[in-house]
């Protein structure tokens, strides 16, 4: 009990603490009271209103669940569906896990510090729910588990905490989407995620953000990868948002651990994105790669990347390519830190303004004016099924922008 009280205490102390980067948000402007929703059985999921279904599809959800190993679906503050169809994979709402499973305390707030800033503090003080997804040792999942955090209530601050555990030798794929009701304008999302990739486990985590024009979003996440583990962290955001700031951190804590971050960001006018990735390479043989592709499209994008090589025999690469299209601002801020001889670290950043002349030139090669095909990053190491899913999400979002 002692440690639970201590968490609360530290959170209270940090509840006014501004984040190191990103515009400060006054969280008092948002409602936090629980919003009840009816639980949805499998068949209810398939009978959602068309417009809601569209939002979910664009966030990577498969409401038929046919090609999904499990589903977690939270609307506003309430879990409306949670279940798994695959042996060896557990999906549990975090509130229930905190009540029923002692082991969750070995993970809860163990990587992200509760007093990092006012957003982490809020996640402890105003927690609504969130998911715990765990692949048991040696289990290999075929289909990804899907998780969706959906906002419907105007003016709500949705506060979630997620924990993802890939036990030794397991293979787990997660596709997680955040979406808002087509009618929602203003809201906030605060989400904590802690990832544990154990020895020789493989975790792919693909996050699709599908927000609204007046949303503020503050995810906070940290991952720890043990020896021989692989963590693929993919991020896709092609929709407007008022302000989104996140700087996920990964610790490669065991020999030969690998982390790869791939992000695709397409801005929108009036939207601000401050998106980074930081990877600590702490053991020999570790590898890290951060690849970001952005198109400003009138939005304001900051792409940060930070690689820290602490020992010899590591290899890390940081790459950011940004295009300024239809105005907007694009800043790439790459940082490399090597502490010893024998680190192999590189970075490549390019920000380009694409003029009408260049667009016309590409069009004369057959490209559509708003085709973002050349933005495609080939994300390695994903199962075909998941790749198709990402392509579909990008395509759906592309069409929607027309």
């Amino acid at each position, binding site marked *: 009990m002692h440690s639970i009280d201590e968490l609360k205490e530290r959170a209270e102390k940090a509840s006014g603490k501004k984040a190191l980067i990103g515009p400060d948000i006054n969280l008092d402007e948002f409602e936090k009271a629980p919003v009840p929703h009816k639980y949805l059985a499998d068949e209810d999921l398939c009978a959602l209103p068309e417009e809601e279904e569209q939002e979910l599809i664009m966030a990577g959800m498969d409401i038929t669940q046919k090609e999904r190993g499990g589903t977690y679906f939270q609307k506003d503050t309430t879990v409306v569906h949670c279940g798994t169809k695959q042996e060896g994979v557990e999906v549990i709402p975090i509130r229930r896990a905190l009540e029923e499973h002692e082991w969750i305390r070995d993970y809860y707030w163990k990587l992200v510090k509760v007093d990092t800033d006012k957003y982490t503090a809020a996640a402890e003080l105003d927690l609504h729910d969130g998911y715990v997804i765990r692949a048991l040792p040696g289990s290999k999942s075929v289909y990804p588990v899907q998780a969706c955090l959906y906002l419907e209530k105007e003016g709500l601050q949705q506060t979630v905490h997620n924990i993802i555990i890939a036990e030794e030798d397991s293979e787990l794929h997660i596709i997680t989407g955040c979406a808002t009701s087509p009618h929602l304008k203003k809201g906030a999302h605060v989400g904590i995620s802690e990832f544990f990739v154990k020895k020789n486990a493989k975790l792919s985590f693909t996050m699709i953000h599908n927000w609204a024009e007046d949303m503020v979003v503050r995810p906070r996440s940290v991952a720890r990868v043990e020896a021989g583990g692989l963590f693929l962290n993919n991020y896709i955001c092609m929709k407007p948002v008022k302000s989104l700031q996140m700087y996920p951190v990964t610790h490669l804590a065991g020999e030969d651990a690998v982390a790869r971050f791939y992000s695709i960001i397409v801005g929108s006018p009036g939207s601000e994105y401050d998106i980074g990735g930081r990877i600590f390479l702490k053991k020999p043989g570790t590898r890290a790669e951060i690849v970001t592709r952005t198109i400003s499209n009138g939005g304001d994008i900051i792409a940060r990347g930070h690689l820290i090589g602490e020992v010899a025999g590591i290899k890390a690469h940081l790459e950011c*390519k*940004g*295009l300024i299209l239809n105005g907007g601002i694009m800043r790439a801020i790459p940082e490399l830190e090597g502490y010893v001889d024998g680190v192999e670290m590189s970075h490549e950043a*390019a*920000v*380009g*303004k*694409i*003029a009408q*002349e*260049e667009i*016309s*030139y*590409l*069009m*004369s*090669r*057959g*490209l*559509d*004016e708003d085709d973002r*095909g*050349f933005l495609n990053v080939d994300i390695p190491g994903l199962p075909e099924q998941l790749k198709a899913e990402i392509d579909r999400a990008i395509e759906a979002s592309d069409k929607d922008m027309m």
Partner: protein
Amino acid sequence: MLHIEDLQVELGEKVILKHIDLDIKIGETHALFGPNGSGKTSLLMTIMGYPQYKVVRGKIFFKDVDITELPINERAQLGIGMSYQRPPTIDGLKTRQIVQICGKDKVDVEALAGRVNFLDFMERDVNAGFSGGEIKRSELLQLMAQDADLMLFDEPESGVDIENIALVGETIAGLLQRNGEQYEQKIKTKMQRKIERTKMGLIITHTGYILDYVAADKGQVLFDGMLSCVSNPVEILKCIGKTGYEECVRCIV
């Protein structure tokens, strides 16, 4: 085929092309001559569909489709391609990627690049720091991948050194189905060759060097925004060489 009818084009407030009538039949290649500033590039850009070249009168048909109002990419998809004199640099896009875009992911990029000695440039951003000759090879490579039916070449030999001129010339001949070996061996008569050929070309040239590799069917002279004569390209070139453009246009008319 390409059919242009009484075309008048403005750029800004200025009339730059007047009463242009032009027909390029299936399999035909025309050479386009004219002094600097006469509107040659403007004509190509208008055919390609650049919106700043405003068509104020007349029509352009390609493959029997009225393309006068079509956006650039739809003209490209219909089979029109262009090799630019001064294409823009595109930061953040590799040459390999633009060739893939041209070939709709269905071409063997390496093999094509090998044919114009361009393998070493594939990872560089499009046109970034390319020399004159490299730009031309990059443009031709993109056209090869695109496999257009009507190809517009804007001064393909300008800025190309002696060593590369043959490569550029032969590549264009290949694109226009006019390279000797491939066609001559199989098809005996000139007549037959013409029937087999489907590709159309319009080549802007000052020097005429390119005609040593590509025997154009017709020559056109653009003078002060007007197409002033149609004749044998070699004859035109001789005439221009002897008397200059102004005299030449007068004598033929």
